[in-house]
């Protein structure tokens, strides 16, 4: 613990003071690497095996839910057709004019439920919403993340980017200090990844279960001893937008396996 704190202090000093917000660069597009590459060979193999990967428990459940009910999701979004969802997950979060705000994939599923299926919105992080999100995300597996930053999304993008570069918590660390400045190095037993969202929602070994990107971000916030925000909150969706843009071009991997 003591040694680790010392490491944190050194990291802090290295990037403190000298850099203003303006000259903190975004990760360059040619440096982008999936979090998969920072995992052990065994964990990569687990993700790649479409039977052993426990994330498929949620994908399969999501597939069932997708076809269930009188007004099912599949009623509009058939596997092959005008409204196929292949590639849809690569374009979220995005601004939704109807909602008047930025929504992510979970938000889109809940919007559909309320507007077209006469169903109540599912609670964020509930098993059913995770399952549906996992299923829809899995339809984009291998496709490049390609989130649009249009005029409406721009303000959210700036808010998310500001969050990413904002020091916070008792450890006074910003996301970029680990995921831009020190990726590839060790943090205790782990290798620090670049912090890309392309494998989410994912099965996290530490949780022994499947969870959303927002649950993962909460763990990062708690890790620097900052107050985490609610899953599904606007600030986390904005951060998700920045992360998605930052990971543009990376292939989608959900259901991923992460530590």
């Amino acid at each position, binding site marked *: 613990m003591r040694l680790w704190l010392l490491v944190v202090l050194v990291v802090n000093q290295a990037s403190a003071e000298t850099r203003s917000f303006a000259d903190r660069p975004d990760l360059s597009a040619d440096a982008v690497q999936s979090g998969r590459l920072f995992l052990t060979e065994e964990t990569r193999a687990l993700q790649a095996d479409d*039977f*052993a990967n*426990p994330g*498929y*428990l*949620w994908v*399969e*459940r999501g597939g069932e839910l997708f076809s269930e009910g009188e007004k099912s999701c599949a009623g509009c979004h058939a596997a092959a057709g005008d409204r196929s969802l292949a590639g849809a997950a690569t374009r979220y979060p995005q601004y939704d004019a109807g909602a008047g705000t930025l929504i992510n994939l979970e938000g889109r599923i809940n919007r559909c439920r309320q507007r077209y299926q006469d169903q109540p919105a599912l609670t964020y992080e509930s*098993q*059913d919403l995770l*399952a549906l999100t996992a299923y829809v995300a899995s339809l984009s597996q291998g496709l490049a993340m390609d989130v649009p930053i249009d005029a409406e999304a721009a303000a959210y993008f700036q808010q998310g980017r500001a969050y990413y570069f904002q020091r916070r918590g008792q450890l006074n660390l910003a996301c970029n200090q680990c995921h831009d400045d020190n990726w590839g190095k060790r943090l205790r037993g782990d290798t620090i990844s670049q912090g890309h969202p392309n494998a989410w929602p994912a099965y996290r070994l530490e949780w*022994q*279960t499947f969870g959303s990107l927002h649950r993962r971000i909460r763990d990062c916030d708690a890790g620097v001893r900052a107050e985490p925000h609610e899953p599904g909150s606007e600030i986390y969706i904005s951060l998700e937008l920045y992360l998605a843009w930052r990971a543009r071009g990376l292939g989608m991997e959900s259901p991923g396996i992460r530590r």
Partner: protein
Amino acid sequence: MSNTIRIKAPGQARRGEVMELKAMIRHPMETGYRRDLYGKQIPEDILDRFECRYNGEVVFSAEFFRATAADPFLTFYTVATESGTLEFRWLGQDESVYRESVQLEVK
């Protein structure tokens, strides 16, 4: 979420062939040692036994304990002898039973 079960078994096999079977179930395998956000103990909830029956006869079984990870996943082997049913059963400590069957044709 309902307990999702995933089974991988060949639909067909030659007599005498060694078949690989895989079985996974969605289950939290809660140890009973953890506490929730409010400090309240989370009650123990584990599966304690798995059986694979081939036309009623147990050909593979396993015991699970608190230290077994969530969503237990087993790979095992048996010899194809006759056509029939492979039944996979998980028994919970609270007497609950989860089951799934697949048909097997032996030529």
